[in-house]
């Protein structure tokens, strides 16, 4: 009499497809990679209209307590003392590239006085356009 061979479960975890998954993840991260030049944590205001900010635009951030940071879009942001420093920074950037776009990353709750002075400095530095960074506002229930 012939005994039937016992069906033993395979003890090996199949990992052949892992490389494919991992490479897909890498491709995803490479495509969406966007080095954060400014690490200031702010709660952005919400808006319905939002346009893509040009890559490597200079960034000016204002936190809720009014702390300002500037970055030329290439290197990490540095803390500046106040709006006068923003003027000298923006003048230097515009001297190198008169068409350079600026991004204003200001906290939703910061007093407008701080933003007003920064915008004034950017106007004096002849900055052509400023993007007011925002989060998406849901269209339903918007306004009010």
């Amino acid at each position, binding site marked *: 009499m012939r005994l039937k061979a016992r069906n033993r479960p395979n003890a090996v975890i199949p990992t052949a497809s892992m490389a494919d998954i991992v490479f897909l993840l890498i491709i995803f991260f490479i495509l969406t990679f966007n080095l954060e030049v400014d690490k200031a944590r702010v709660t952005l205001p919400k808006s319905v209209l939002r346009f893509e900010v040009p890559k490597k635009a200079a960034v000016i951030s204002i936190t809720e307590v009014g702390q300002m940071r500037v970055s030329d879009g290439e290197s990490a942001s540095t803390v500046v003392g106040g709006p006068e420093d923003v003027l000298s920074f923006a003048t230097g950037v515009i001297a190198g590239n008169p068409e350079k776009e600026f991004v204003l990353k200001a906290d939703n709750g910061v007093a407008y006085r701080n933003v007003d002075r920064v915008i004034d400095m950017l106007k004096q530095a*002849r900055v052509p356009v400023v993007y007011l960074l925002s989060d998406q506002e849901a269209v339903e229930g918007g306004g009010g």
Partner: protein
Amino acid sequence: MKFSRRGVSDEIPTSSMADITFLLIIFFMVTSTFAATRGLDFALPKDDKDPPIVEKEDSVLISIRPGGTLEVDGRPMQLSGVHEYLKRHLENNPVKPVIIRPEPTAAYGDMVRVYDTLRQLRLVDRKLVMRDDVPSLSDEQWEAARNINVSIPTQREIDQFWY
């Protein structure tokens, strides 16, 4: 006499590839960010030495008070009522400027909310409409429609040039 044959392996060693790829993934996960890269564009005047003089009666003035309340030409108003108000004033005079004037202690987010609302309005056949009001219009026609003339003067400009 014994000859030992040293066979050459015909497989590419890939065992370390998983380590390398996982390290790359961790690098990209840590350094990449999905932070907002979109916002409202705000064109600044080319030259602020000689700004156009705007008379009080030739413009619509939207003041933003602390707490987010609005006053339009001196009258308290909800943001939802601004569209109707502007319809009455801009459909006869499309070039009439709308001036946003937030108080120094008002929140920046309230200014963005008002500016965003005004930017959504366009003049189509002398009617002040939002995109949803004219679904028959193509995107090209909508883009070509005239925006309203919004300006946000800074405090220095107000001190220097305000009437």
